[in-house]
């Protein structure tokens, strides 16, 4: 334990030095940029020549500081055998590479994501193929994709209950790239005159076998999904269907429409047949409940004359845990912690860790949430500067998180984001039992 802390602290100082050196170099490079490139604007035709290949992506560094809540259940579960003090540092780095090769009607597209993390748990690095698929486009009406792909279905900003073939979003950072699943899909598009302007039809086959689309659901199953999209009376409408055995059969729909030029409404609905929920009681006994789950989301996006954007969403997750089920879970952790303190045995806490990873640890595990994001574009005439604040309220238990952030994108291809998050709630509430009270991070991302 002491060794870990000592190594972490030394490594932290080293990382901090490297990080600030990197920051200084960036500042020097970009502060002199306007003077170096202060020539007249030009537009050379060679700038727009199409190449048969493409390579790009981004690199980012992100130091994070967490202030711990030592009385929280999740702190007790993860830190019961270590003392990290009142705050922990973490240093994240990420490299996302995107490449494409195009020839005739075919295009091969690949996205890889490499993440490095130096935290109180030590160093960790992983590389994941986020997407890698061959796309065939015999006509503008038809596209066929084969390989690993992120489908991004649904209309919600923070949550997508009808995105049956996507990994869940993190509502705290919904615009992060996500890993896809291996699929064979097609898009057929047809346009019309009249109130129905567009109709598109997307059948998808999702094979789930060992090492193929793991994490999607039960293995050794071939799944089939369909999406029907309509632009009908200026409203985007999707009807979605998934069946096959890896997950129970489910039906979804979503819509989005501009009421005025600055006011948009959207919604999603999902019906899941025979959803199986696994949960535990306060003594750690396992239970399984099977029922038809209904999830839905209703949201708006509103832009004021002063360029303030409001995104508000209400989300009901029919697969989520009730307040009583979550209380049982937290009480089981506390029981495990008390047992560890009195006997030194951590078997119950390890069981709690397992059920957390399998089930309770999902990003928003409960039933009813309210999301609100307010962002102000370019206040005080500061171009490319967007401060915003995001709040997520768990309606069931009244706990919440509040995340102010400052985003600056004024330097070509460089994005600077300073973000903090404060969480609060009663004991045995979702946010009240998180291991941190507060988090601060600086993300520096460079696109190339």
């Amino acid at each position: 334990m002491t060794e870990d802390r000592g190594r972490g602290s030394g490594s932290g100082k080293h990382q901090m030095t490297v990080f600030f050196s990197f920051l200084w170099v960036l500042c020097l490079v970009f502060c002199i940029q306007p003077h170096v490139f202060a020539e007249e604007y030009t537009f050379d035709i060679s700038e727009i020549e199409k190449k048969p290949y493409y390579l790009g992506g981004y690199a980012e560094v992100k130091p994070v500081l967490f202030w711990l809540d030592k009385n929280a259940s999740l702190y007790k579960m993860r830190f019961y055998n270590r003392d990290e003090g009142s705050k922990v540092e973490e240093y994240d780095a990420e490299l996302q590479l995107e490449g494409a090769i195009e020839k005739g009607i075919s295009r091969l597209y690949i996205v890889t994501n490499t993440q490095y993390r130096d935290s109180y748990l030590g160093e960790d690095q992983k590389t994941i193929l986020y997407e890698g698929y061959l796309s065939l486009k015999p006509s503008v009406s038809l596209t066929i994709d084969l390989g690993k792909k992120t489908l991004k279905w649904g209309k919600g900003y923070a949550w997508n209950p009808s995105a049956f073939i996507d990994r869940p979003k993190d509502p705290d950072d919904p615009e992060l790239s996500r890993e896809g699943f291996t699929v064979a899909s097609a898009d057929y598009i047809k346009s019309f005159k009249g109130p129905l302007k567009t109709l598109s039809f997307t059948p998808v086959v999702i094979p789930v076998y060992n090492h193929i689309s793991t994490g999607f659901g039960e293995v050794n199953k071939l799944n089939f999904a369909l999406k029907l999209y309509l632009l009908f009376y200026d409203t985007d409408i999707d009807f979605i269907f998934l069946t096959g055995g890896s997950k129970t059969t489910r039906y979804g729909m979503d819509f989005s429409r501009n009421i005025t030029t600055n006011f948009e409404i959207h919604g999603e609905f999902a019906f899941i047949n025979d959803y199986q929920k696994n949960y535990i009681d306060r003594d750690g006994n396992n239970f399984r409940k099977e029922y038809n789950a209904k999830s839905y989301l209703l949201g708006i996006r509103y832009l004021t004359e002063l360029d303030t954007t409001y995104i508000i969403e209400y989300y009901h997750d029919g697969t989520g845990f009730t307040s009583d089920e979550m209380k049982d879970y937290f009480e089981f952790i506390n029981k495990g912690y008390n047992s560890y303190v009195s006997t030194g045995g951590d078997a119950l806490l390890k069981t709690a860790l397992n059920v957390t990873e399998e089930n309770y640890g999902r990003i928003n595990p409960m039933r009813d949430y309210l999301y609100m994001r307010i962002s102000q574009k370019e206040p005080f005439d500061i171009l490319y500067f967007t401060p915003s604040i995001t709040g997520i309220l768990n309606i069931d238990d009244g706990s919440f998180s509040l995340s102010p952030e400052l985003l600056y994108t004024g330097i070509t291809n460089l994005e600077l984001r300073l973000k903090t998050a404060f969480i609060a709630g009663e004991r045995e509430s979702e946010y009240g039992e998180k291991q941190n009270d507060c988090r601060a991070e600086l993300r520096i991302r460079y696109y190339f």
Partner: protein
Amino acid sequence: MPKIFGFILVLMTALPAYAIDGTELLKQIDRNLNPESYESYRKLINIEPGGRKKEYTLFTVKKGLDKVAALFLSPASEKGRSTLRLGDNMWLYIPNVGKPIRITSLQSVVGGVFNNSDILQLDYAAEYHVEKVEEKGSEYILHLKAKTRTVAYDRIRLRADKNKKIPTKIECLTEKNLLIKTLYFKEAKDFGEEIIRPSVIETDSPLYKGYKSIMIYAKIKKRSFRDEVFTLTFMPNIESLR
């Protein structure tokens, strides 16, 4: 009698000058700016008061009165993003992030003085009625009013060269005639296929004092597209049209 006859003759020759068909004139101005269906390459440059600038390169396709789509080619942070406009509906697609989201005409996907409506400009005649046409020296002044409340600017004052019927200056106004921004059309260029039009559009705004945005056209070419190109489903594939 000859005097009366002469007066009638003068009236007959003078009448056409006062009977300018504003709508027809606006349609001619639209056609002189762009073919009805075309592809183009543009660069948008935002210039801050201190001289710092940020550039964006776009590939744009348009069909008919109400369909336009644009794909960002650079900078790297924006590459692959695309925007689509179908009449009053606008969407933004960001690769790797999510599905196309609805955006509004008054927002700006690039920041700076140009908003989404300026970047995904439809024909002026598609969005505005001509209220009045004035003649001043070598220019026409067209007073335009938005056909619906969903149009980005309530009023537009468009100055056009009388001979070439090409805009020289456009003032975008609120309902109460307050100036929102001014577009200056400069540097006429022959793009081929009888397309001769300003290759540079500069804009400034009293709302963004000291800031300037510039749009430079490198290439405009007549081209026809199928309607399916202008759909949400096709947005990730606009690059394949290049």
